């Protein structure tokens, strides 16, 4: 028996647009099933393309770095020699440069970002806080090559005069390993400062979001118990947000690790391992950018690609560590994360 339901679509006349369309498309539009299938196909392909892209990049990196790894072995990672003219390649100086500059950048940007976020959310009047947030967003929009230029012309001379002051200081600061060496201006400190400036907007805006997520009920509970503003922030609001602030730090670190242009412009580009903040250095990202165009041999290119692979592995490890840390924190804090 024919179900009356089949006739129902014909009982309401199709709209004018549908009447103009050819029969096939009309049926297709009115049932919607074809559209659904097409939609699923398109979105599915998009998702697959994203995953595929990642795979392609990884494959390229692994394939590209194979010659260098075959030639030098995995000890490549821990060798401090980098001498392309004599076909000697080692990643350690660059790893050190990346780690040291990132450390300096994070040591400055993390406290600065978190404290600024606290000021914006908990202390400053709303209008002023909005103005500052806007300024910080604009800071994030500055292309890093421009920051690099500013670094060369403004920051490096500033750092240099600071270094000279330390050098001449009668207190003998220059005998300390981290302040030793010639006051050149370019080097780890200048690069670290630039990285701090670049990481700051990320850390600040994420921390700000995190602090805004603290329920009003928590704030009120603290104040109703007779907490001063400082106590409420230090004992309740920050501990509540600490997981998210950890995430903010990681985001900043991820930004800092791979940053190339600005760092290359102010770090001095000398592959060496020195504890001094004033010494020149080199990072994984900047050596790739600097030497790729003039690599003397295929092996040199392969070595550069393997430096990139190290950077990739580093970020993946960082991500994994972050996830593990979050799982640990979640377990320790009980059901806090659950709504």
């Amino acid at each position: 028996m024919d179900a009356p339901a089949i006739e129902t679509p014909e009982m309401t006349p199709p709209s004018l647009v549908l009447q103009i369309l050819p029969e096939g498309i009309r049926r297709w539009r009115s049932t919607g099933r074809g559209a659904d299938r097409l939609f699923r196909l398109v979105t599915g392909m998009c998702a697959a393309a994203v995953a595929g892209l990642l795979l392609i990049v990884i494959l390229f990196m692994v394939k590209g770095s194979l010659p260098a790894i075959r030639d030098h072995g995995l000890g490549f990672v821990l060798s401090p020699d980098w001498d392309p003219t004599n076909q000697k390649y080692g990643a350690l100086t660059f790893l050190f440069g990346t780690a040291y500059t990132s450390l300096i950048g994070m040591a400055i940007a993390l406290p600065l970002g978190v404290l600024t976020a606290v000021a914006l959310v908990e202390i400053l009047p709303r209008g002023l806080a909005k103005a500052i947030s806007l300024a910080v967003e604009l800071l994030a929009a500055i292309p890093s090559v421009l920051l690099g230029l500013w670094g060369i012309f403004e920051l490096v001379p500033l750092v240099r005069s600071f270094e000279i002051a330390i050098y001449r200081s009668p207190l003998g600061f220059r005998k300390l390993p981290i302040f030793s060496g010639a006051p050149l201006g370019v080097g780890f400190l200048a690069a670290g400062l630039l990285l701090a400036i670049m990481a700051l907007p990320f850390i600040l805006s994420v921390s700000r979001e995190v602090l805004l997520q603290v329920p009003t009920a928590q704030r009120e509970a603290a104040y109703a118990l007779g907490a001063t503003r400082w106590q409420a922030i230090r004992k309740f609001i920050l501990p509540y947000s600490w997981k998210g602030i950890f995430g903010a730090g990681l985001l900043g670190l991820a930004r800092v690790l791979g940053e190339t242009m600005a760092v290359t412009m102010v770090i001095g580009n000398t592959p060496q391992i020195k504890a001094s903040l004033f010494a020149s250095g080199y990072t994984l990202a900047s050596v790739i950018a600097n030497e790729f165009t003039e690599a003397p041999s295929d092996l040199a290119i392969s070595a550069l690609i393997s430096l990139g692979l190290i950077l990739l592995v580093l970020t993946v490890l960082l991500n994994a560590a972050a996830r593990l840390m979050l799982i640990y924190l979640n377990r320790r804090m009980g059901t806090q994360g659950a709504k």
Partner: protein
Amino acid sequence: MLACQNLKIEFDRKSVIKDVSLEFPPQRITAIIGPSGCGKSTLLRAFNRMHDLTPGARVSGLVTLSGKDIYHKDEDPVLVRRRIGMVFQKANPFPTLSIFNNTIAGLRLSGLRNRALLKEAAEKALVDAALWDEVKDRLKSNPMSLSGGQQQRLCIARALAVDPEVLLMDEPCSALDPIATAKIEELMFRLRERLSVVIVTHNMQQAARASDRTAFLWMGELIEEGETEAIFTTPKKSMTEDYITGRFG
């Protein structure tokens, strides 16, 4: 005694409480009732200066505790809040602290460090809040593992630990089941012996069974107040009668 005279509260120039004068005698439970949006919670929050935290809020008139103006410019809101405790609509224990540390959070804030004293105070507050037997074996646990009613009693214990003179309760049972509600009401009667309790509730049965005095608020104005029995049996204003018999609100 907590009291207010000609109290007015505005948010961004919009008047929410208009000229309310009330007294909250010690050792009494006073219920503030009224339809949603009448300003009950706003009124309550003025009594421990919570509006100080809201930009755009303005409180005028007089709020006194033992005759002293708590809004006087020399009064520190932090100290005011230590004398006038508050329990909120939704239980809000600190998820980052253990049950024990939640209980003594207020004492820690006021600088008490002595471990033995803190322990003693925690036990006393938890006993007072009728929670001790349920949590004494897991004082180090996370408070979020407690039931809703237990969490709310933990919040009451937390407020009691600093030994306040007044306890403000903002619809403390609205998220609780009847059994948990009954426990909290029973608790209020015991607390009455040592402090004055002000409870905001939209539940008229609760006001009728668990308070000594009742104040009826409507559109930011105090319509009537008096002994609970009188308000519920022989109200003077027809509006009060209409509200308690469910004709509006």
